[in-house]
């Protein structure tokens, strides 16, 4: 694959791709038509399994495998699109929905066909108010042109897609909290199992996939699983939209093959660190992963699901926040902790109380007076939360804190010695 070929952000190469006529002129909905008229739902699942596509919401779970867990013979089923994009530093799904919406919608339809679902909901964060209105208009255009409704392409496959707005809650990006919210309840995670594939929306089998994951489907069905596997790495095929933000000259979304090193993204595409400063740290998955010291080894690490754990972090949603050497990592931990404390849903005690106490100690460190021993106390509180939470939010909340203390201890200790 040439460095410049885009699979997801195709609108950057094709003007007006957000218009249905333009999308159709560039092969739009051909993959859907061919799949629905020539493949069985099981064959469609097999294509996605073979492609090796992994969920782009953060967990990186193989998409086709997730679909194959649907409880057999229970109907109706639902497809729910996770468009609650709220991870700090993540703004990729927004660009896909704003600029290449029909590729997402065709992906939703392909997923619904494979899952044998006839209703799909796009759960959009409430802040995407204007975007959601546009998306509804596109859905209306699709219906008018015969790509939604009953008996599509003269088959027995029928589909309706609806947009549902959230109202400002990060936790609803967790798939079971999202389903609770869609049912009109507090967005609090469910105990699992059962997983949504067995009991999801309204207790029925449900596929929940991220926007970017679904936008991968039309090209996979159009060009084949084997083609898809030629991009990226063996275990992480395909391209990824990396959201680059923070202390970098050219922040923005960059679609690159999985396995591209941090250095290429940050220095080649992102233009490096402005103001004559040096790179100090990288948050590779927004606030939800351990902070990396920006060593040469880390900068040369391929950004894919299998390589990040080797250097002590995770790819997650691949929202890369760059930190320069003027920034205090104890302040970074304060910011991420304030975020998680605000967003904790309150259901499980370790997260609800733990994020509160982490914030208390961090504010004491920053504002004083403090009597010393605060850094060890903070570390102990964080470790006390670890492994005890109902959902990943609580587990994520401690990662910038523990990794910050363990890898940038001097930044934290400086506050202690300065305590009044």
């Amino acid at each position, binding site marked *: 694959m040439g460095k410049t070929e885009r699979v997801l952000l195709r609108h950057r190469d094709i003007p007006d791709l957000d218009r249905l006529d333009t999308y159709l002129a560039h092969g739009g909905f051909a993959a859907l038509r061919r799949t629905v008229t020539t493949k069985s739902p099981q064959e469609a699942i097999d294509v996605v399994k073979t492609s090796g596509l992994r969920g782009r919401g953060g967990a990186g779970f193989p998409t086709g495998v997730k679909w194959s867990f649907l409880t057999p013979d229970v109907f109706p089923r639902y497809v729910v699109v996770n468009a609650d994009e*709220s991870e*700090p530093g993540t703004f990729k799904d927004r660009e896909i929905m704003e600029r290449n919406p029909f590729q997402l919608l065709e992906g939703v339809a392909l997923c619904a066909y494979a899952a044998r679902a006839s209703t799909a909901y796009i759960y959009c964060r409430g802040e995407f108010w204007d975007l959601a209105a546009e998306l509804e208009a596109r859905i209306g255009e699709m219906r008018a042109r015969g790509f939604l409704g009953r008996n599509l392409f003269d088959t027995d496959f029928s589909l309706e897609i609806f947009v549902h707005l959230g*109202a400002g809650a990060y936790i609803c990006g967790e798939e079971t909290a999202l389903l609770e919210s869609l049912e009109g*309840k*507090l967005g609090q995670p469910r105990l699992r199992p059962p997983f949504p594939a067995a009991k999801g929306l309204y207790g029925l089998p449900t596929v929940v996939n991220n926007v970017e994951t679904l936008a991968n489907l039309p090209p996979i069905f159009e060009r084949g699983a084997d083609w898809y596997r030629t991009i990226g790495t063996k275990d992480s095929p395909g391209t990824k939209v990396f959201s680059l*933000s*923070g202390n970098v000259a050219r*922040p923005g979304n960059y679609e690159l093959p999985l396995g591209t090193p941090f250095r290429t993204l940050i220095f080649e595409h992102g233009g490096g660190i402005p103001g004559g400063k040096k790179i100090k740290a990288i948050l590779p998955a927004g606030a939800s992963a351990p902070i990396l010291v920006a060593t040469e080894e880390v900068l040369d690490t391929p950004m894919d699901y299998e390589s990040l754990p080797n250097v002590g972090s995770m790819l997650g949603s691949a929202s890369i926040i760059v930190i320069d050497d003027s920034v205090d990592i104890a302040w970074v931990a304060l910011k991420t902790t304030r975020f998680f404390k605000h967003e904790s849903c309150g259901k499980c005690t370790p997260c609800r109380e733990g994020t509160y106490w982490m914030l208390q100690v961090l504010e004491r460190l920053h504002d004083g007076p403090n009597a010393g021993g605060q850094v060890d106390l903070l570390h102990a509180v964080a470790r006390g939360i670890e492994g005890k939470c109902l959902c990943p939010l609580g587990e994520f909340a401690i990662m910038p804190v523990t990794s910050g203390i363990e890898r940038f201890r001097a930044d934290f200790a400086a506050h202690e010695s300065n305590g009044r």
Partner: protein
Amino acid sequence: MTALAVGQGVLREQRAAEIDAILARYPEGERRSAVMPLLYLAQHLYGHLGQAAVEEVAGILGISSTQVGSLIGFYSLYHDRPGGKVRMQICTDLPCALRGAEAFARDVCRNLGVRLGETTPDGLITVEEVTCLAGCDRAPMFQVQDETGIHYREGQTVETALAWVDEVRRSYGQD
């Protein structure tokens, strides 16, 4: 905005077509799913979600007012008390803060003579701090929540933000 008598079916009366369209998106027997869209409708009509609005929404859906009311504290885009006609919600989360959003918020507040969370003396604009809005590459940025919905303003400076404030004041006839 004129003051409306909350409750007593005003929402149902004034927004009947929208309410029906919302209810039609969800399966029979799953009307509770419509609670969040209906809360937006009520908030846009009444300006905030007081107890009467909560009971009205609960009545439309046939669920308890507790089931409706608990959502308002949980979801940050719903407001249980009146604020300014326009809410200016500035993202000061980590990625924006790395690009000057905290200083931006402070300077905007200083110019408007308010602290975060407060409303300008003319009752028009409430300035608030919010978490990540997925606009990190165009920081500083804020969203505007008003009776028409939520709209983003990105790539801001203190000057462009204050120019927007003037624009809002003019459009509400308070210049």
